[in-house]
């Protein structure tokens, strides 16, 4: 079956962890110069398959052929040297190193052979050549320090690093998940050049739009099984979603029939020097307020200051007309303003602790008396809410790190809802989670608004903002640059114009 045109070909890959089969006879083949999208819900086995190809995990059975040879890489270094590299979703550069030092890490050109003196000039020269070839010189120079780069720039460096290894296959794991639209365009251009150079790209993504824009073929995994491989030109969004979830899904956004009532929360003249300025915001009961803007526009920062996590230079907060003082997230919680943060690992979850403890930590007041935890009550309340959320798990005593991204997000939501929010702030609630879990989270949001809760949703996905919000507030460069009400006005173009607009000033 291994045809000569395939640069990478896997067959019958299976892998079990502790008796649970996570991959079951998976096929994948890559042609040089194609973008091959790999789709599937979280937990479908995409990452495990990639980790097996890269030699991070060992497979239980199956073959991997690379350039026609049966390969079994023992470590990522082996894979890298053979010509397969991976751009991880979470990048981890060494902050104090320069771009060129990072690219050639471990392969430094020595001034004199055998002596440990690095020829920085030579490294810079070689990096510069690569940057020029991929037209990236206006974004990065070889001498920049990694700590001064943003996510998009770091990603460019990673790609350059992959190219410097003469990689013939590059795996990209959700590369656009933290990129702005503008940065995404640059990435697409790099990918085009890679295609011309006959590099095969495995592109893991949850975003339909980009799969149709970018990919030549798409393979779908579900529950560790290979479902099928389609040519993008011959498939449709509906077919792919069906393949991924094994069932029909609606248009994607549930109908929101909640009545918008009185003003719940009012933010007045929020300022934080160098971060945001003159922020005024109102949230009514039953309303979903979308917050649009590019990465770095200051949306999360405003929200973090609102709940007392970050400091605030000046500004007032009113809850149902009464001024409240918030100096610590505890104050926000007592006023029923609850935030589900953007980064689950960074701010959302205690990854090494159980699901139960993660849910209860924010709600000790409900399950304790005189500082003693009522464990029976804790167990009941936590299992009730997580079940209500349809969290897929064996037991609430499981470590939260054993859950998929979507289910982890449900744990975050569970703990937020237990705190009985009146205003719920959701920062990128669907980032990095699969189609099925996304739909579940949208449903939860609608149910909450029907109960009269006001929601602020920060999102970088335009369709989601437009599909879910009653109102979209756009931020740019730390200012609110516009507010769009009603469906007719809210198109991607107007939002984008506002999101970009503020920067020109």
């Amino acid at each position, binding site marked *: 079956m291994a045809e000569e045109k395939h640069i990478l070909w896997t067959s019958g890959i299976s892998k079990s*962890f*502790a*008796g*649970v089969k996570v991959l079951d006879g998976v096929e994948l083949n890559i042609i040089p110069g194609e973008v091959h999208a790999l789709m599937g819900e979280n937990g479908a086995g995409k990452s495990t398959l990639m980790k097996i190809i890269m030699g991070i995990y060992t497979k239980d059975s199956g073959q991997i052929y690379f350039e026609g040879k049966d390969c079994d890489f023992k470590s990522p270094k082996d894979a890298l040297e053979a010509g397969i590299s991976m751009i991880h979703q979470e990048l981890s550069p060494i902050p104090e190193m320069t771009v060129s030092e990072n690219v050639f890490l471990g392969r430094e050109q020595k001034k004199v052979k055998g002596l440990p003196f690095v020829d920085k000039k030579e490294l810079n020269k070689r990096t510069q050549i690569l940057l020029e070839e991929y037209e990236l010189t206006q974004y990065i120079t070889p001498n920049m320090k990694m700590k001064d780069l943003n996510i998009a720039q770091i990603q460019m460096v990673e790609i350059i690093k992959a190219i410097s290894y003469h990689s013939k296959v590059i795996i990209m794991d959700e590369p656009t998940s933290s990129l702005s639209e503008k940065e995404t365009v640059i990435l697409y251009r790099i990918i085009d050049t890679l295609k011309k150079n006959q590099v095969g790209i495995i592109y893991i993504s949850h975003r339909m739009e980009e799969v149709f824009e970018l990919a030549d073929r798409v393979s779908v995994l579900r529950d560790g099984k290979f479902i099928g491989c389609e040519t993008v030109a011959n498939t449709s969004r509906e077919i792919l979603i069906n393949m991924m979830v094994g069932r029909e899904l609606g248009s994607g956004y549930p109908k929101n029939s909640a009545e918008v009532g009185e003003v719940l929360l009012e933010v007045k003249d929020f300022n934080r020097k160098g971060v945001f300025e003159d922020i005024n915001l109102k949230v009514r009961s039953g309303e979903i307020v979308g917050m649009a803007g590019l990465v770095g526009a200051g949306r999360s920062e405003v929200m973090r200051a609102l*709940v007392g*996590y970050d400091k605030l230079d000046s500004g007032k907060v009113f809850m149902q007309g009464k001024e409240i003082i918030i100096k*610590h*997230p*505890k104050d*926000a*919680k007592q006023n029923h303003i609850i*935030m589900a*943060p953007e980064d689950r*690992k*960074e*701010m*959302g*979850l*205690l*990854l*090494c*602790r159980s699901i139960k*403890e993660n849910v*209860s*930590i*924010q709600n*000790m007041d409900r399950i*304790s008396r005189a*500082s*003693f*935890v009522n*464990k029976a009550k804790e167990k009941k309340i936590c299992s009730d809410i997580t079940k209500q959320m349809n969290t897929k798990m*064996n*037991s609430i*005593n*499981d*470590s939260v*790190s*054993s859950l998929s991204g979507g289910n982890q997000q449900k744990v975050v939501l569970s*703990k937020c809802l237990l*705190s009985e929010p009146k205003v719920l702030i959701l920062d990128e609630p669907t980032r990095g989670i699969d189609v099925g879990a996304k739909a579940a989270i949208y449903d939860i949001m609608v149910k909450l608004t029907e109960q009269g809760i006001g929601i602020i949703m920060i999102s970088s996905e335009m369709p989601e903002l437009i599909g879910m919000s009653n109102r979209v507030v756009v931020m740019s460069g730390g200012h609110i640059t516009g507010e769009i009400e009603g469906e007719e006005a809210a198109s991607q173009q107007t939002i984008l114009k506002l999101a970009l607009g503020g920067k020109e000033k």
Partner: protein
Amino acid sequence: MTQKKDIGKIVRDFGLAAVVLLIIIVMSFLSESFLTTNNITNILRQISINGVLAVGMTFVVLTGGIDLSVGSLVAVTSVICGSLLEGEMNTFLVCIIGVAAAMAFGLLNGYLVSYVGFQPFIATLATMTIGRGFAMVYADGKPYIIKDPSFIFIGQGKIAGIPTLVVILLVICMLGIIILNTTTFGRYIFAIGGNKNAARLSGVKTKKIEMLVYLLSGFCCGIVGLMLSARISSGQPTAGEGYELDAIAAVAIGGTSMNGGIGSLRGTILGFLILGLLSNSMNLMNIDSFYQNIVKGIIIILAVFLDMKTKGKQD
């Protein structure tokens, strides 16, 4: 997957308990004096000192911190008690003041770490040096002789046939387990070690909790200061030198992660039992104390290695 992990956890705790049993069985064959009441009492007395420190240390390590100052704080309490007892102050008052002094240092540790933002290693390294210096200056480098019989009772007396030192250890362990496993404070400690940012966003007063944890460690140091001074009938400025390492070793052997968030007092208790039994066994067998250090180090390496192996399987 979780079942497997639970099994790993049980294997690990059983493993430690098995090591304890193994040492006891082997030693009862190797040495006639091992299983005598005298020797067992001796072991328990020795363990009690390190045990109380290790309980406090467990709290600190669970938050992701470390307390290097414990040995010096023992000396601070020791010299203060020694001098006050020479002045024939009320015994009870002396104990209160002695413990309070160690707690004041604990408070300074906590303040530097949580409110000023020092690395725990650096903050407690500084107070370790200051504490030792303070004890030396205060006592002018010389020990105080303690004669007060009711004070000495703490270190040499018995309650219902059990040495007072051991009774104190049991009480501290029980209190520690109750605090850690049944109170909100205990939950907050695990939460801070697990992810300080997430804990704070969840409304946990992380700074206050961290501060309290160092205060608690200071309290344990104060208690040990009393225990040790009473045991040796003197207020020693050199008391407790190197004790921080034994306490940290017990915590590490017990499986508490040095990054915080994972661990238990049950493990720590097994940890200091193993350390105490080993050192007693080697003494009985006349093994040179230089070799004893080597063995102790190897035990730490083995225990942490075992820990990594059982935890690594989760992935």
